[in-house]
């Protein structure tokens, strides 16, 4: 898979770009970058590290498989060959674009 460098927030946002937290169930795309969002009592830096540790790295293919009943939250995201559940407020830090 294409590896891009870490400072992806500097990349100009294309019209197709959006964050994973706002994407509908069934969305398929690729990760463009992680943007610094402090959430749930964590600093932006810590939030970014946690997402990276679960495999949310630039270039990874993602797909939203399931969502919860209340507020369509949380979501179950396929990241390459792993399925991760997370809340939309955390997924908002993940910038995604189309697959190709």
């Amino acid at each position, binding site marked *: 898979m294409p590896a891009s460098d870490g400072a992806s927030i500097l990349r100009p946002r294309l019209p197709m770009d959006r964050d994973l937290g706002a994407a509908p169930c069934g969305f398929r795309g690729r990760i463009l970058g992680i943007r610094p969002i402090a959430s749930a*009592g964590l600093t932006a830096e810590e939030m970014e*590290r946690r997402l990276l*540790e*679960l495999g949310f790295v630039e270039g990874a293919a993602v797909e939203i498989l399931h969502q919860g*009943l*209340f507020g369509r939250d949380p979501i*179950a995201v396929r990241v390459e060959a*792993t*399925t991760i559940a997370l809340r939309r407020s955390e997924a908002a830090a993940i910038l995604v674009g189309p697959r190709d």
Partner: protein
Amino acid sequence: MNDQSIAQRRFHIALVGNPNCGKTALFNALTGSHQHVANYPGVTVERKEGSVTTETGRRVQLLDLPGTYSLRARSPDEVVTRDVVLGRQAGVAPPDLLVCVADATNLRLGLRLALELKRLDRPVVLVLNMFDIAKHRGMEIDTGQLAARLGMPVVTAIAVRRGGTAALLAAIDRLAEAALPPLPSSASPTWEPPDATGIRRLQQEADRLLEAAVRTPDRRDPLTRRLDAVLLQPVAGLAILLAVLFLMFQAVFAWAAPAMEAIDAGFQALGAMIGATLPQTGALGLLRSFLQDGLIAGVGSVLVFLPQILILFMFILLLEDFGYMARAAFLMDRIMGGAGLHGRAFIPLLSSFACAIPGIMATRVIDSRRDRLATILVAPLMTCSARIPVYTLIIGAFIPDRPVGSGAWSWIGLQGLVMFGLYAAGIVSALGMSFVFKRLLWRRTPSEPFMLELPDYKLPRPRNILLGLWQRAKAFLRRAGTIILSMMVLIWFLSSVPRPPEGATEPAIEYSLAYGIGRAVEPILAPIGFNWQIGVALIPGMAAREVAVASLGTVYAVEDAEEHAGQLGQALASKWSLATALAFLAWYIFAPQCVATLGVIRRETGSLRWMWFSFGYMLALAYLAAFLTFQTARYLGAG
């Protein structure tokens, strides 16, 4: 170090890996010592040690560690893993070899961890576990290529198959040989937590490795895909979760009945036998009373609940092994979040249905202290299995055994429904209290993020389930044999001593110490409808809740010595009002937890203050609930 001591030195190995990659299964396969194997990420909260002898006769010491995604530990659980790996954990020998376990079907995160471990400059071997599933799915893994690129030995393993660990054992032998003389640095390696750029680089390196050495057919596990389509469907998923819980409680009642009747009959026969052989009076009469009323009636009335407890645990073990628990956390996150709890708290709370102790220990997977504390405080409100004896006894004696409705509803029994209601009351109060705590105690701290891997479903292994059940049964029997038995002896002693004087006219128990104690607390208990016999039973009930039943059994057995101590339920039905019975049930929804639970709360929160706090608030709730129930029931004419 001379050759002698080198040969004698034990070789220490630690199993490190992502949650759910099969470390515990591998550990069991290697050591033959068994422990609970489950599918919920991070279920291993305790350190497990064992030893294995390799082909060449080398004794190797093995340590099973909690799952982690990185050495950058966040939860108390992951801290243990990090400290052991770095050789910083007090009382644990620094490992001579790290066995990095990875799920072969899900290598991406495992490879990054392997790369992270490699930086520590310690011998590492990578194990590709679950190789059977990987092959079945048509994956091709070039282990030679992986080993060359990683710079560490790579072996495959199938933890759940006989002989599935042969390659790993051989590799351990080879490495142990090569590792002598002892490693240059037994001291802890230098290690800095990686920053975001560092993690990114490692993951990108892992992705390149994956690209070069692994071919994966591009599809999800079909079983998991099909099941999740239903089980995680927003509405159906929640409905199914509820149905599963409801089925669990119906089963606890219905399936256990025959076994319980058999155990009950056995103890009755035993009691009758003793009664027939020993005389009524004199020193032997005292012995007879002790054996019949204290020992057999007491222990019997607790052991009767073994079948129910085993059925409850069987459900929990099956759901864990199957991989459903992480899904339950997913479905419940929003609902629990409304009450101020973390989605991850669902598993500790569900385990608390069996017993609050493992439930409280399972909270170690929760990263944030506040979320963890909130879960610990409300976990004892979940109806633990020790309350089953109390509920069963009272429901059996006071609630008629008939269907709720007719036709389509006739399969739901009224007794089962009341039981379900008691469980529901426990759940609702747990959620309500955590909401209150959040508002009062931690108004400003936001709750932690919810991030959880959903593992592929696996068919539960009957061997795992049976082993788990056997461990629970052993723990219960040990409890029955120690705490409960000694409490029973105490209760019998208090209710039999002193013996009534010659020519006494009142029942024997009215001359006993227990009577004095019961009478002393009666004024406090009168507003909630409890008589002095209940007062006597409540005190040892704090050592272990189920003892309350046994104590009632003993008190009434001694009281009714003349008219043969028969069914406790019948005795209660004739002596208690319905209002008292309902108040007693209400009390036990909240009843202050047993001593063992208090001890665990103290240990896990590291504070006496929180222990007393949880004791106090539950005592207050229990009294209030019993008071309201009793007064309302009496007002409605059930007094």
